[in-house]
């Protein structure tokens, strides 16, 4: 009798809840393994209104709050001069055209705006790398204005789940970084919905085309924003055979997209943890210390692995004259 009464209460409560928020119920239910791909695809279109929107805004506010700790432009110390600029900062759109010089003057030191702010964008793999980059930039180059903007289980595939286009536009506009380092791909090895709204099986030719479109769109976005230099870090060889082919394809796509952009440069890390085309679990860093480079899942870096990749990126930035070691005291 008691069990039946409880069942009655629970059923009534469920019905009340379903009718009071049908969209939430449908969306939750469509995420179960029983739901067919069509149902799952339809569920992505369902918008959940009300409290959740304000909740999302609240968390975005918390996530963005680091901006408050960044000094305002007026607080930034005067610009240093160097004899040669690494890369000229973008000119404001409303700037007047420079008048041609009447006569050649002796070479004066060019005014260079140093690269001060670094932004690291990506998934959880980027988070591991970003921590190491932050540490290296702070310790060796005295650069403290760095930010990791990461979101676990995201990428350029499931933009219905997390819209990296919107997020990137917002964070670059708000944070105004000089250099952006991007790393995606670990969560993108899944079916994709192409621009016509059709689902494409992972690694099929159609999938590659659709993913390439996503990557190119992202590259164009980065090109159009105020950032001065972008490094697109490729995937390193995974310790997981099922990801081997996918990462090779993705790296080619990232590389091609980077070539067609003026700001983006692709950094290949594929061979960093490889020997004779095979993954090597233990690799020595610059100082000769050996250590494991990937975690149990075969994808995420250990801190040692992250340090090796971070050194690779930092070396590239030094050779591009983006980084300059501060004078020793």
């Amino acid at each position, binding site marked *: 009798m*008691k*069990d*039946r*009464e*409880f*069942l*009655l*209460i*629970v*059923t*009534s*409560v*469920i019905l*009340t*809840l379903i009718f*009071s*928020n049908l969209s*939430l*119920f449908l969306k*939750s*239910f469509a*995420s*179960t*393994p029983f739901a067919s791909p069509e149902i799952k695809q339809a569920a992505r279109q369902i918008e*959940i209104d*009300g*409290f*959740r929107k304000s*909740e*999302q805004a*609240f*968390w975005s506010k*918390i996530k963005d*709050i*680091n901006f*408050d*700790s960044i000094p305002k432009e007026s607080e930034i110390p005067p610009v240093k001069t160097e004899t040669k600029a690494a890369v000229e900062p973008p000119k404001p759109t409303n700037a007047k055209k420079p008048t041609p010089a009447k006569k050649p003057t002796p070479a004066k030191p060019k005014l260079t705006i140093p690269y001060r702010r670094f932004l690291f964008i990506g998934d959880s793999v980027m*988070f591991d790398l970003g*921590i190491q980059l*932050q540490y290296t930039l*702070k310790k060796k180059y005295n650069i*403290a204005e760095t930010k*990791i903007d990461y979101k676990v289980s995201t990428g350029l595939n499931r933009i219905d789940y997390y819209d990296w286009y919107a997020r990137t536009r917002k964070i670059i506009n708000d944070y105004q970084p000089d250099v952006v380092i991007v790393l995606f791909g670990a969560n993108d090895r899944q079916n994709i919905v192409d621009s016509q709204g059709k689902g494409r099986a992972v690694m099929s030719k159609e999938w590659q085309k659709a993913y390439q479109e996503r990557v190119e769109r992202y590259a164009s976005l980065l090109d159009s924003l105020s950032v001065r230099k972008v490094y697109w870090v490729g995937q390193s060889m995974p*310790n*997981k055979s099922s990801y081997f082919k996918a990462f090779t394809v993705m790296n080619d796509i990232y590389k091609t997209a980077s070539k067609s952009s003026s700001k983006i440069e692709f950094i290949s890390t594929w061979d960093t943890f490889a020997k004779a085309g095979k993954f090597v*679990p*233990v690799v020595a860093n610059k100082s000769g*210390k*050996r*250590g*494991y480079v*990937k975690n*149990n*899942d*075969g994808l995420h870096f250990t*801190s040692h692995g992250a340090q090796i990749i971070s050194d690779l990126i930092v070396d590239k930035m030094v050779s591009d004259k983006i980084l300059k070691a501060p004078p020793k005291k």
Partner: protein
Amino acid sequence: MLFPTYQFLVFFLIIFSAIVSVKPQVDLYKIVLLVSSLLFYSFWSFDFLLLLIFSTVYNYIILRVLCKSKYKKFALISGLIFNIGYLGIFKYYNFFVTSLFEVLNQLQIPADFPVLQIIAPVGVSFYTFRIISHLIDCYQQKIPCPNFVDYAAYITYFPQIASGPISRAREFYWQLNSPEKYDYKIEEVIVLILSGLFKKYTLSSFLFNFTDLPFKVPQQYSSIDLILAAISYSCLIYVDFSGYSDLANGISCLLGFKPIANFNMPYRSLSLQEFWKRWHISLSEWLRDYVYFPFGGNKYGKLRKYVNLLMTMAIGGLWHGAGLNFIFWGIIHGLGLIVNHLCKDIPQAIHFKLDYAFPRFAKFCSWLLTFTFVTCSWVFFGTPNWETAVSFFAGIFHPAVATFQFNFWQLYLVIAVIGAINFWGDRISQLLQTLLSLKNIFFRVVLVSLLVYTILMLGPSTMPPFIYFNF
């Protein structure tokens, strides 16, 4: 399959309807319960299910040998080796291999061990602990050898398999085989489920956002932010785990089992000893009975007692995770408990006059000291490694960032609510039960719907995982 999901709700309604109809028929009831548990576990992963079945069958064979043959000690030792090895491979192998590599590397001895790409099966620590205690209980003849269905139902019991509480075989079998099932009160179950949902879905999910990043990159936060993050983590781990226990207990009640007290307002403790009597009670008692007592407990003098206490807590720390930070967390709790025992063992030497002069102030000091100690120790528990824990504490005293980022009234409110649950949780629960005990079913439905709706609306759109699923 997480408890607070529609998926589980549908699953449970089907299971519950089946259980209700077979409750009086004990044999059929056991089969339905076992099948439900296996089905529930298969939702995590089919491979995990196969491992669970293998472990259950293998351990049952050992148990039969232990109970029926003369090679009892051999069966016990081989059972213990198998289970510790099973837990070791899935949970600790990579940790030991990488730690050994580090040591050899320091000594400049070339080494290269393979790292296994394995994910520990959900609840492996919990069900392995149940298997181990069952073996020991049978060896000590505290319980007779069960039949296979009873044993499998106990090991795989789905409300407790992922995150406990760690039930004891004797009580479980007694309830399983009794035609008279636990006579729950509807309001008691509703309060347990609502409490679990509120703690996990609303409070824990909220606090996760204030602890996730500060515990990974403390250098990005100011001193006050880090203090708030540490307090938030104390609150988070409590609501996350006790919320799960409440849900597991509520579901257990409906299936015919008495709820197991796992948390009893732990943050109101006035000493570390009291804290461990209120925090994760089923684990504390398990460690006491199957680790501390076999080490000798307090039978061989005070020094030996303190050593045993330290070793038990270190093992308890290692049980929580494969990492030096977990072992260190266990050790500092062990040291804290030793200091606590010393204060009691030699009261004349360090008698505290404050107790008599200002009893309330003394109580407050004791509470503050205990809470601060526990909160600081969680930093080692929650940070990914030793270096991050050190930079967390360094950040409190020498912050790299000055801006106060977590100044939100919502955060203070949530901390206050969790404080209230810790000090008056029993009264709040009683009050809610009285409210819900009215006979009018319409009133009950409206009130429960309203409360569930509020919890869901206050919850996030995505839910972070249960912290204790990792253990």
